[in-house]
């Protein structure tokens, strides 16, 4: 008989060990999945985790992609983690990401073809504001009407996707694009472009912003009273209320920050790697960031590492699909599995496993 005994405080050792254990278990389960698909599991895993970075033929292309993909994931996940810590569940980051990209791009395109580098920072600011405003909808509904923020923020993703479709074929469509959907190419317009800052590294302004966000989040959580309140509200809501923490303020703050960061990720993406507003420029970073946040233990530095790992599964997955014909959907399932294993092994952090019969006095 196996029984669980609650630890007085979460185990520090397991807090650090569980993400690695979860990754190891996911690799095993993923290998089984690839085997079930009729692919060589060892080759598949090696392609995803090793060849993507070290294969002489592909590494030159893949390595810069690591930062390109990790940037938005880290940026969004850092914001989400603040909310998740406080028990504020923003799961609509994908929508805030889209709206940030739309508003930022709209401002830039309104000034086309002005030739000043000031346009790019303006777009970035407006993009952040757009994401913030979109996140304020669930925040205000939550604080004013006590409406569940999980459902509202998620449903708004579908609204944002429809808005994006409408804008890509309507208002923001490239007038010189021969009627094809999609906006002007922002990455090729010097005033708005978000270029690679150091050649062949993938480093662009979005990646810089991500690392700044990580540092700020770290300071906020560990050195600032607001960060303490966020942690307190998540761990002991009652104690937080007695300590004078205003839940309303935290909801607005957490949703606002995560929305603004998701909006930033969106505008950096459409001015850089994606290049333009198109119907499907969003590839689900807003959802994958949820996995990144948990994999990083809701800790800013952990998130930076988790973002890099998750980016690796994206580029490794692309390589595996190209080399071995593993469907892209398998990688999505793989990422989902990672979250399952993480949640499962987390029990070791909070509970002690006891073998044998429970004692009567327990």
């Amino acid at each position, binding site marked *: 008989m196996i029984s669980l005994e609650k630890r007085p405080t979460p185990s520090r050792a397991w807090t650090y060990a569980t993400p690695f254990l979860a990754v190891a278990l996911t690799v095993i389960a993923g290998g089984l999945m690839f085997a079930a698909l009729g692919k060589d599991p060892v080759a598949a895993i090696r392609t995803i985790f090793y060849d993507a970075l070290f294969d002489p033929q592909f590494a030159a292309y893949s390595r810069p992609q690591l930062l390109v993909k990790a940037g938005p994931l880290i940026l969004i996940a850092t914001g989400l983690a603040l909310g998740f810590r406080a028990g504020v569940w923003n799961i609509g980051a994908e929508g805030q990401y889209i709206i940030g990209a739309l508003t930022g791009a709209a401002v830039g395109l309104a000034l086309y073809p002005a030739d000043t580098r000031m346009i790019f920072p303006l777009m970035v600011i407006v993009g952040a504001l757009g994401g913030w405003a979109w996140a304020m909808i669930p925040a205000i*509904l939550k604080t004013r009407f*006590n409406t569940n923020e999980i459902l509202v923020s998620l*449903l708004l993703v579908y609204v944002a996707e*429809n808005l994006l479709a409408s804008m890509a074929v309507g208002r923001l469509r490239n007038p010189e694009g021969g009627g094809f959907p999609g906006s002007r190419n922002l990455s090729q317009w010097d005033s708005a472009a978000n270029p690679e800052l150091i050649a062949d590294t993938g480093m662009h302004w979005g990646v810089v912003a991500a690392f700044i966000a990580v540092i700020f989040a770290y300071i906020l959580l560990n050195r600032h009273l607001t960060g303490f309140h966020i942690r307190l509200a998540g761990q002991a809501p009652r104690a937080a209320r007695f300590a004078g923490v205003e839940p309303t303020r935290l909801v607005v703050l957490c949703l606002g920050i995560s929305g603004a960061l998701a909006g930033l990720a969106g505008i950096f993406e459409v001015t850089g790697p994606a290049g333009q507003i198109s119907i499907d420029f969003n590839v689900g970073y807003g959802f994958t960031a949820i*996995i990144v946040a948990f994999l990083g233990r809701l800790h800013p530095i952990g998130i930076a590492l988790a973002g890099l790992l998750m980016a690796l599964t994206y580029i490794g997955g692309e390589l595996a699909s190209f080399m071995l014909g593993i469907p892209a959907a398998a990688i999505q*399932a793989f990422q*989902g599995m990672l979250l399952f294993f993480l949640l499962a092994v*987390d029990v070791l952090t909070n509970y002690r496993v006891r073998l044998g019969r429970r004692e009567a006095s327990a």
Partner: protein
Amino acid sequence: MDLSAISPTLLVASLMVAATPILLAALGELVVEKSGVLNLGVEGMMITGAICGFAVAVETGNPVVGFFAAALGGALLSMIFGVLTQFFLSNQVATGLALTLFGLGLSSLLGQGYVGIKPPSTPRLNLGPLSDLPFVGRVVFGHDWVVYLSLILCVAIWYFLRRTRAGLKLRAVGESHDAAHAMGLKVRAIRLAAIAFGGAMAGLGGAYLSLVRVPQWTEGMTAGAGWIALAIVVFASWRAGRVLVGAYLFGGVTVLQLNLQAAGVALPVEYLSMSPYLITIAVLVVMSARGTRRSLGAPADLGKQFHAVH
């Protein structure tokens, strides 16, 4: 624009079809939440059911077998959630999200070879002279068996929750798992059973989308239906009868906006397409403004972890 092209008969008839997937999923989630478990993985279970049902129906040529497979697929997937939340004591919100993310990936993986195929059709039931009645015949008695199954299940679930001993036990577990445990009820077993039932219902709902309503398989075809089902449970204040009302209202909105699209209303298609989501949000706001979740009838231990010490 020609609004007269919208036939009220067809509108009401297609409303029932549009509402059925959400009704099935929402009824399942109702039972799950009544047992005190919040499973946010409805979307993932629905889409997994959609592809399981579709694939099996295509392979066997029999849609009924497809629906069974969908229920089984949804229930199996829900067991991942069940084991994680009940035995590994994981956070229900996070695990539900994981289930949705995983289900979306898994379904498009399973659906690789099924894009662009037509499934075997699910015929309308022939109810003899009833189906020949004017208006009522077409609207009420002109559907396939799943529509009636969903209505029967609605009554059955109401009866189960309100009038049977087993239903009382399930509600007791949802209201206070500690008290229920002290009374000797098997909290985990009851919750696992509820989660499996919810998964099967979501699977059925998904299969109805891919086998009847669309009928086709496309990636991500549930398009938020699972989340709307979750919202409808809140709208319904955790009551089976009101789940029916909510699902049919939602079906009505969906069908109306599709008809308006077809009639060529001046509004762009995308704005009509987003209307069901906006209306769902509006309904949630109205409901939550009326009181706290508790006063609306949410089970007291909804979403809380159960760890028996004794």
